[in-house]
């Protein structure tokens, strides 16, 4: 069986996870192993990998080839961009954002982490914590990933030694105490040999915890979204202008937080007008309530001028509204951040412009301290930055809501996405 069959598919949920590790930590091998041991590999894919392995002359079938996408990667033997992989077990469907480990590609890890419920961070058992381990852990924490799993890999190369695992786990625990991650786990594995990935290892009887696959299938994720603060950024105004729906004005969007019910009192920002929810539609079907992350169309009892970029919120629970926004910024572009420079901002469905008022500090990601000296924010740097926007943004802190607390900056001359911001 490759996927769930007709039966039970209505009951599966979706877990998005990201994988990070330093070069040669065996990340591609781990993903190849997950796919292979859950029987997700098709014959034609396996044939292609066998042929490619043979061409390169490495003796064994190289499972990492299953995930190496672009030609440049195949030539250099490294992963250079975020690649998405899919597999399913009878319990869950999984989306893997496979991101590279090199320092210059931090932006890809941030990208992959932005939507993840869980991060797998690989640590080479022979090397222990490296600077990149710290960097990856910090990014996972900064991007608000609720669950982090440290896989101590290549246990086969340290004779499956318990003391090695325990020592690395201890080091990781000390380091992680500075992070804001709710749920951290540690598993000794060998991706190459398959220990504790899908099948329980017989070579590490001292380890009593779950296998990686067991965790992925069972970790509780329904509580990861904010179902408290009602937030509905309006994406698009639906106006059929037909005979049947002559005066219909519906507000289309994806619920970013909380639960909206028919009859609820709501506020519209920035106008501040109040109204009540008249109807909620999901396609043709009218529903009584909508919650994150559902995409619906709402109508309100009163005729209020609402357009894209506005946000409908619960009447007694308003987000912060301000033109002064304090963010942790990850910089993605070769041209450094320009203090006093102007950029376009995208926050939910709102487009605005901003000026960079001040760099408060640059992070030294390996020590998790403020960096000394030069505070220029360059490619792959992370820093705390004060923005002044042309119009007020209506936001929550990122740690409270990953959707209403996030924004991107766009260079107005090249249109490139130059930074990701987490509102603090």
């Amino acid at each position, binding site marked *: *069986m*490759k*996927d*769930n*069959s*007709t039966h039970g*598919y*209505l009951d*599966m*949920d979706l877990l998005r996870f990201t994988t990070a590790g330093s070069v040669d930590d065996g990340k591609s091998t781990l993903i190849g192993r997950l796919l292979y041991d859950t029987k997700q590999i*098709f*014959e*034609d894919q396996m044939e292609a990998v066998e042929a*490619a392995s043979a061409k390169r002359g490495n003796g064994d079938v190289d499972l990492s080839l299953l995930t*190496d*996408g*672009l*030609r440049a990667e195949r030539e250099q033997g490294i992963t*250079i961009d*975020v690649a*998405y*992989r*899919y597999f399913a077990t009878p319990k869950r*469907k999984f*989306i893997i954002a496979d991101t590279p480990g090199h320092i210059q590609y931090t*932006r*890809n890890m*941030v*990208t992959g982490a*932005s939507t993840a419920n869980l991060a797998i961070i690989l640590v080479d058992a022979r090397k222990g914590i490296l600077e990149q381990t710290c960097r990856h852990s910090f990014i996972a924490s900064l991007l608000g990933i609720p669950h982090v799993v440290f896989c101590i890999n290549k246990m086969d190369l340290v004779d499956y030694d318990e003391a090695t695992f325990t020592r690395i786990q201890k080091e990781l625990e000390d380091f992680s105490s500075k992070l804001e991650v709710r749920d951290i786990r540690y598993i000794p594995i060998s991706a190459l040999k398959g220990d504790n990935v899908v099948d329980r290892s017989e070579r590490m009887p001292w380890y009593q915890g779950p296998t990686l696959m067991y965790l992925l299938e069972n970790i509780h994720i*329904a509580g990861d*979204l904010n*179902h408290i603060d009602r937030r509905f950024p309006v*994406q698009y105004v*639906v*106006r*059929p*202008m*037909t005979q049947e*729906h002559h005066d219909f004005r*519906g507000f289309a969007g*994806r619920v970013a937080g909380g639960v909206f019910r028919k009859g609820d009192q709501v506020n519209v920002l920035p106008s501040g007008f109040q109204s009540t929810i008249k109807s909620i539609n999901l*396609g*043709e079907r009218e529903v009584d309530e909508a919650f*994150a*992350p*559902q*995409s619906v*169309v709402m109508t309100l009892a009163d005729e209020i001028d609402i357009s894209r970029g506005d946000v409908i919120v619960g009447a007694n629970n308003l987000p912060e509204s301000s033109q002064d926004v304090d963010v942790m910024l990850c910089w*993605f572009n070769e041209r450094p951040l320009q203090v006093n420079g102007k950029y376009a901002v*995208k*926050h939910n*469905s709102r487009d605005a412009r901003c000026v960079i008022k001040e760099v408060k500090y640059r992070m030294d990601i390996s020590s998790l301290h403020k960096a000394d000296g030069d505070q220029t924010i360059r490619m792959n740097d992370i820093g705390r930055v004060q923005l002044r926007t042309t119009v007020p943004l209506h936001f929550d802190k990122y740690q409270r809501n990953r*959707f209403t607390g996030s*924004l*991107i900056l*766009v260079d107005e001359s090249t*249109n*490139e*996405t130059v930074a990701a911001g987490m509102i603090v």
Partner: protein
Amino acid sequence: MHSYRLTHLKELESESMHILREVAAQFERPMLLFSGGKDSIVCFHLARKAFFPAKVPFPLLHVDTGHNFEETMTFRDELVKEHGAQLFVGSVQESIDSGRVQEETGYYASRNKLQTVTLLDSLEKHKVDCAIGGGRRDEEKARAKERVFSHRDEFGQWDPKNQRPELWNIYNGKKRPGEHFRAFPISNWTEMDVWQYIMLENIPIPSIYFSHEREVFKRDGVIYANSPVMRLKPEEKPYQMRVRFRTIGDMSCTGAVDSPASTLEEIIDEVASSRVTERGSRMDDKRSEAAMEDRKKEGYF
């Protein structure tokens, strides 16, 4: 207190509806590339849901190789009529007739590669600034890396090494004049998700996805429909067989599968136990290890 939990299909649906609305909001003149295959049918269905009770606010664009299955064309025309959609057709035959491209010759001649020119010409002719496609990341290794909002330069080229980071559900569709975007609302769906969703939502699809009797012939282990567009080698003898199609593309490069599956349930069971990928029956991907990547860089879907 009940749990606010979505099934994977509902979560994917919600994500796709959000993407389609972003396209409609961020672009002046988007179009949905519509081949009559299941992925584009699902995209259209999602678009109807996203904008209900209004009509889908963008037209359909069919890049017609002239080598289509008749059943697909009938289906396309009925769908357009039923939903009052606007359809534009870009014709590869016209591109050949006007000398824009040259027809391949030989037994393996296919119009698949020629489509790229017709597609880019059509986008320019209709001033399309975003072409929405049914591409999925699970289909192929190069697609696995493509963004949901995928930038194309003025030559329609994709630059895989210089893609914009795409975070959370914020999509950056800013561009210069002459450039355009491709948007892939079902990027995160797998073949299985698409089939399950078709069943869940009861979405009509062309009859050739279901098992039927047809005249076929075998070439290099692939079963092809016998048709005037295929040039048979002397040793290739057509015969009758019960088959169905797992993907629907140009007749010259789409292989059939030997299958008795005549209901959605049976198709899903078949997909679940299949040992080869969907594109395993597509000749166009087999041309080289990086075939898809090369075509995409030139502007292919």
